[in-house]
């Protein structure tokens, strides 16, 4: 079993969304292999289409004032969140028919990847009972949300590597009153996104298949 890795660099949220949807259709038809997409987005707030977040929770003008886009109706779980420079997105286009057809296990695996990755940088990360994502003590450092069609996933997680945390001040991330943090903030020093990607890849290979040979990388030729 192989998992292709695409690194799309900085890409608009919608463009990455369309790429995921296109790939998901191919994976479902077995015309493409399982794929892990890395990217970052320009400032954007996204709201899931099942969100219970009320309009009053966020301030449209303030979002505009920060130069951020607002996208509602996203087909993932979760509530409202922020994506932007310094936040590493890992999108998983996986056919869960090859991974036990277990949504809960898949989400737990994503959390395990996050915790192991963060710990490998010396951050005391953990999951939190009753809440999803990865936490550094009581601060949330990574959020996740997925969409599944016919057992093929899209979306994944956003890990705050060197995110400007002030963008979270405009919302209640995931609909919760919580403090968000980043790897840079926790460690007090800057982190290379390239190193974080390597660690994520290593732990994905270990956790999903226990095979180090899971990956091969391919240049994102579609972008050119």
């Amino acid at each position: 079993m192989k998992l292709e890795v695409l690194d799309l660099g900085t890409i608009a949220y919608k463009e990455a969304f369309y790429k995921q949807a296109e790939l998901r259709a191919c994976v479902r038809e077995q015309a493409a292999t399982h794929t892990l997409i890395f990217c970052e987005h320009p400032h954007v707030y996204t709201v899931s289409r099942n969100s219970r977040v009320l309009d009053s929770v966020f301030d449209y003008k303030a979002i505009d004032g920060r130069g951020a886009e607002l996208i509602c109706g996203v087909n993932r779980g979760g509530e409202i969140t922020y994506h932007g420079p310094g936040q590493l997105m890992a999108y998983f286009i996986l056919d869960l028919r090859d991974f036990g057809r277990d949504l809960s296990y898949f989400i737990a695996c994503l959390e395990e990847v996050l915790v192991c990755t963060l710990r490998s940088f010396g951050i005391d990360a953990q999951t939190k009972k009753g809440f999803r994502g990865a936490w550094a003590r009581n601060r949330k450092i990574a959020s996740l949300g997925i969409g599944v069609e016919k057992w093929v996933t899209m979306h994944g997680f956003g890990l705050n590597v060197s995110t400007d945390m002030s963008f979270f001040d405009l919302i209640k991330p995931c609909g919760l009153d919580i403090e968000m943090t980043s790897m840079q903030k926790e460690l007090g020093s800057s982190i290379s996104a390239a190193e974080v990607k390597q660690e994520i890849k290593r732990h994905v290979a270990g956790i999903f298949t226990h095979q180090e040979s899971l990956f091969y990388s391919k240049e994102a030729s579609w972008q050119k």
Partner: protein
Amino acid sequence: MAKVVLPELGEGIEKATVSYWLIEEGQQVKEGDEIVEMATEKAVFNVPSTASGILKRKLANDGDEVRVGDELAEIE
């Protein structure tokens, strides 16, 4: 009459919420066609029809919470 139920989603997931129906009552569906979008805390997913025929009756409305194994629709 075939019943569509909320399938097993994995250990620990016992219920999901109806996001919205993709098919209306009276519409023709084929086995495997996705008929309703459901959501758990961190995931959204579509439930396929288990039979071909007419979607006779929806047994849950948008926003309703449904447990694994509960009936979602009747296909005739």
